[in-house]
């Protein structure tokens, strides 16, 4: 495909990132992103919250501040009660409100299958845009949310999860990456992305590919929901996790000591996952302390960046 460029495009399709960035002036750039999906939880209000947290996350991952949003709705009006849609949208609005983002419009169509999401617009200083592919050797990698939502949601589908676990995983997916992003803006961060459908392995691969850098991951330090490890070993793993693992097989080197369930969770597709942040080695400890002091207790240093022509993800 031939996509004409423009001198004001800072991040566009030719270097796919979490969101597009367009320079308005030397002081201001516009961030735009859109995301929608089918329900991943049964409760409509929670689904709305999760969809909003997920859509906002792309702006945070670019180092920006989201400001406005628009709803995208596909709804089976002939077979589903309209009150379901009201609850979904209320969930979205409440999450936007929590983020200080205002809903200014939207569009809905009739569809056999329910879908909801948002387009989000935010701002960033053009010099402070955080792209994925800017890992610096010596940087440390910080992950702000535990992994395992895809596997736990599969166990929920199987009817295995307790009400308590459903509440826990829902809360995790609905939690904003806002605070982590705010704290990140005060530290020397070179790259950032958010963990979603490609899993930790897939998103690490995107950060590494074509950069002449490699990463070393300490699997024992990667935050994971303990229930996800348990359900992974029982075979409640979504197809996407296997696809993610296979797709990046030739880039990933797992030490023999890394249990299979840990490998599975590292490839697990996440919904509204945490931020994966590459921060300078000297500031890693104070950054992590700041995150934890702000209540982001699951945040952990999971690895480091090194110069490496082979561009591997080495997990031990």
């Amino acid at each position, binding site marked *: 495909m031939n996509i004409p460029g423009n001198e004001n495009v800072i991040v566009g399709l030719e270097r796919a990132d979490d969101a597009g960035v367009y320079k308005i002036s030397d002081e201001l750039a516009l961030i735009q992103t859109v995301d929608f999906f089918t329900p991943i939880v049964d409760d409509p209000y929670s689904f709305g919250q999760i969809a909003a947290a997920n859509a906002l996350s792309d702006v945070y991952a670019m180092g920006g501040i989201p400001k406005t949003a628009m709803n995208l709705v596909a709804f089976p009006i002939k077979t589903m009660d309209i009150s379901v849609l009201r609850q979904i949208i209320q969930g979205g609005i409440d999450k936007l409100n929590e983020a200080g983002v205002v809903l200014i419009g939207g569009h809905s169509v009739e569809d056999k299958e329910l879908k909801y999401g948002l387009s989000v617009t935010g701002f960033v200083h053009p010099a402070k845009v955080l792209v994925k592919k800017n890992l610096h050797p010596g940087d440390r990698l910080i992950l702000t949310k535990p992994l395992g939502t895809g596997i736990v949601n599969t166990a929920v589908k199987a009817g295995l999860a307790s009400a308590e676990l459903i509440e826990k995983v829902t809360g995790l997916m609905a939690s904003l990456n806002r605070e982590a992003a705010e704290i990140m803006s005060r530290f020397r961060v070179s790259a950032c992305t958010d963990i979603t459908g490609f899993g930790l392995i897939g998103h690490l691969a995107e950060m590494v590919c074509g950069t002449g850098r490699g990463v070393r991951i300490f699997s024992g330090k990667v935050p994971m929901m303990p229930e996800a490890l348990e359900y992974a070993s*029982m075979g409640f793993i979504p197809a996407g996790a296997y696809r993610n693992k296979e797709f990046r097989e030739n880039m990933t080197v797992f030490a023999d000591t890394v249990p299979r369930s840990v490998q599975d969770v590292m490839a697990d597709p996440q919904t509204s996952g945490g931020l994966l942040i590459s921060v300078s080695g000297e500031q890693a400890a104070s950054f992590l302390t700041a995150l934890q002091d702000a209540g982001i207790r699951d945040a952990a240093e999971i690895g480091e960046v090194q110069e490496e022509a082979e561009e591997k993800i080495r997990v031990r």
Partner: protein
Amino acid sequence: MTTVDARGLSCPQPVILTLDEIKKGNDREIIVLVDTDTSKENVMRAAGSQDCQVKDVSPEGEGYRIVIEKA
């Protein structure tokens, strides 16, 4: 020998059926038929989590035939 036909079912149904059959404990050997790689991998993990041994995995038709034996 019991056969669980999980073909045409999507994740996590094949695993649920396999675990149910293992827990019933009627037969020492259980054959599970699946038609995706995901189901194959998940059923093998399910068996392993219940102290069962996967004795054989062979292609059958469009999918796989998994032979599980209880310890």
